């Protein structure tokens, strides 16, 4: 049960979060969604709530309830949501019945595109544009998953409880993408982009190194020693963060 709940939170708060950048960086998806003006509320009994809002060509994925969602999708349990995310189940629509064609049509194209970027193959990774987006989304997913694992997974929670206050910056050189994770009074707050005064930093030399590193194709110790990945600052924060991130595959494959 706990496993399904964590997976559901990861799906809503970390995986779907990537829709925000998908419509920004994939020109086809930007074109597809540029005139969308609606919101989709996800409600999971005994689980997380989140909504996706499309407006003015942009997309926002947020925790909690939307004030006036166009569509409401209900799930009987976290496992129900997870089945849908795995393509093996359907939600129960509570509102927006007229928009069901949108969900099964254009919106499905968007989520299929996200799935395409999140499920790399060796061939796909040979394309520069694909590599860049896969890496960006993997980095974002890691940052946003960290909060969920650090708050709910029993071991992750224990590890997170010892992380001192401050922000961690993870950046792909030379110009990003970057994510930051802030730890403050036991709260974990991930964000996309840089942070001005990080307590610890991890710099990945380039997109290829970042992709290999984030997908565990090279081990962290070797990457650091060879200079492909540079760490500095409060290294114990990065050690703890790494222990939490290493638990993601227990929930998301």
């Amino acid at each position, binding site marked *: 049960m706990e496993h399904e709940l964590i997976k559901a939170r990861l799906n809503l708060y970390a995986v779907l979060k990537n829709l925000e950048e998908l419509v920004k960086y994939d020109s086809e998806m930007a074109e597809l969604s540029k005139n969308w003006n609606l919101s989709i509320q996800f409600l999971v009994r005994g689980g997380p709530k989140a909504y996706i809002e499309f407006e003015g060509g942009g997309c926002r994925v947020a925790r909690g309830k939307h004030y006036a969602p166009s569509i409401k999708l209900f799930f009987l349990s976290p496992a129900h949501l997870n089945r849908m995310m795995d393509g093996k189940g359907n939600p129960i629509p509570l509102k927006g019945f007229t928009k069901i064609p949108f969900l099964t049509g254009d919106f499905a194209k968007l989520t299929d595109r996200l799935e395409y970027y999140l499920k790399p193959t060796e061939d796909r990774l040979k394309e520069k544009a694909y590599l860049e987006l896969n890496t960006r989304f993997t980095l974002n997913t890691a940052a946003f998953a960290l909060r969920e694992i650090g708050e709910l997974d*029993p*071991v*992750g929670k*224990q*590890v997170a409880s*010892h992380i001192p206050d*401050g922000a961690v910056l993870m950046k792909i050189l030379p110009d990003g993408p970057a994510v930051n994770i802030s730890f403050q009074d036991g709260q974990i707050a991930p964000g996309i982009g840089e942070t001005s*005064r*990080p*307590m*610890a*930093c991890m710099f990945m030399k380039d997109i290829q190194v970042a992709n290999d590193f984030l997908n565990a194709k090279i*081990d*962290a*110790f*070797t990457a*650091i*020693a*060879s*200079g492909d990945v*540079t*760490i*500095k*600052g*409060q*290294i*114990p924060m990065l050690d703890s963060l790494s*222990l*939490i991130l*290493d*638990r993601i595959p227990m929930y998301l494959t």
Partner: protein
Amino acid sequence: METYQYPKSQELFKRAAGVIPCGIYGHYSPAPLVPATSYPFYTSRAEGARFWDVDGNEFIDYMCAYGPMVLGYNHPQIDKAAMDQIKKGNCTTGAPGVMVELAEYMVDLISGVDWVSFAKNGGDMTNYATMIARDATGRKKTIMIRGGYHGVSPWMQAPGHHGTMEDDSKNIIRVKWNNFADIERAVDENPDNIASFIATPYYVPAFEDNELPEDGYWKKVEALCRKKGIVLILDDIRHGFRLDMRGSHRYFGFEPDLICFCKAIANGYPISALMGTSALKESTARIFYTGSYWFQSEPMGAALATLKELKKIDGPKIMQETGKKLMDGLVDLAKTYGYDLKVSGIPSMPYLRITNDESLMLHQDWCAECTMRGAYFTSHHNWFISTAHEDKDIQKTLEIADEAFKAVKKKYGDRF
């Protein structure tokens, strides 16, 4: 002053990474050296307080192989004692006679203990000590200090680390250092179920200031252990013979039941020792605990010679005086650049941190700049001083540190 480059170290590392998991593992991993590329990875030779890397760069060594080097590398007297044993037969059927000689010497040397067992590494002995405590008390649980390091057995590692299971820590209770109430609470919450309390003489975490025991801390711990029948284990692996030749418990004035030694015991030859009181001798004898190389005569000969030499010259006093000289010089130098260099721990194994930047990045840069000029400084771990560090080494180190302060000042300006 030119700064060092490490092409051969990197080249060797690349080869290593192909055939050795993570290239260089454990506490020798370059990962906590920040940035790793400012440090040498491989040594070609060493002498006295210095070593040379595979690129031919010369370093004054303030890590001393993370503690084992205490009298200087290639110490002729110690190496001869080791070689004498090798010539007689190093790893033979039947225990070597020198083992008894070493045992008698150590029982005389170390205060408050009656017997000794030998192994190879510190972790062999911390593990053994907890087993003895469990056998002697019939209890399950061990109290240790949160952030304390006693080796790499699963129970010693914090939860979440790879290769460990939650059950490995089931009988471990972690408490805060210098917080006696925390220990009392753990004991009260587990009546008649605490087998042992294990800690180092003072707190030596990585990346943090080291902390000496508060006044009366150890006496209170000792009294509680006696009252509750808890075995008091002193992990003197890192501190041993750098604070007091009679054991670090004499430095802080308390009496443990079991003491673990390693590192400085044999000037780099592989041996560890567990010492204890007569009350625990029978339990110790009952436990089957051994290793293929635990009866090697070579490190025993080296240990005997090392301990005798350290005692003769009062090694701990020399190392503390040398360490103080270096620390005073570095702190004064730092001030001239507007930096507050904080020294914690005992000067023979000091931990340093420039407090102007709490993220440690400024301090890491300074240590890296020193290393690239020939003073091997780590930024994450306490340093080690040996009796081989001479005034000329200290002088040279201060010159290097001055250059390094200039370099970081240039980089950061008045930001800190």
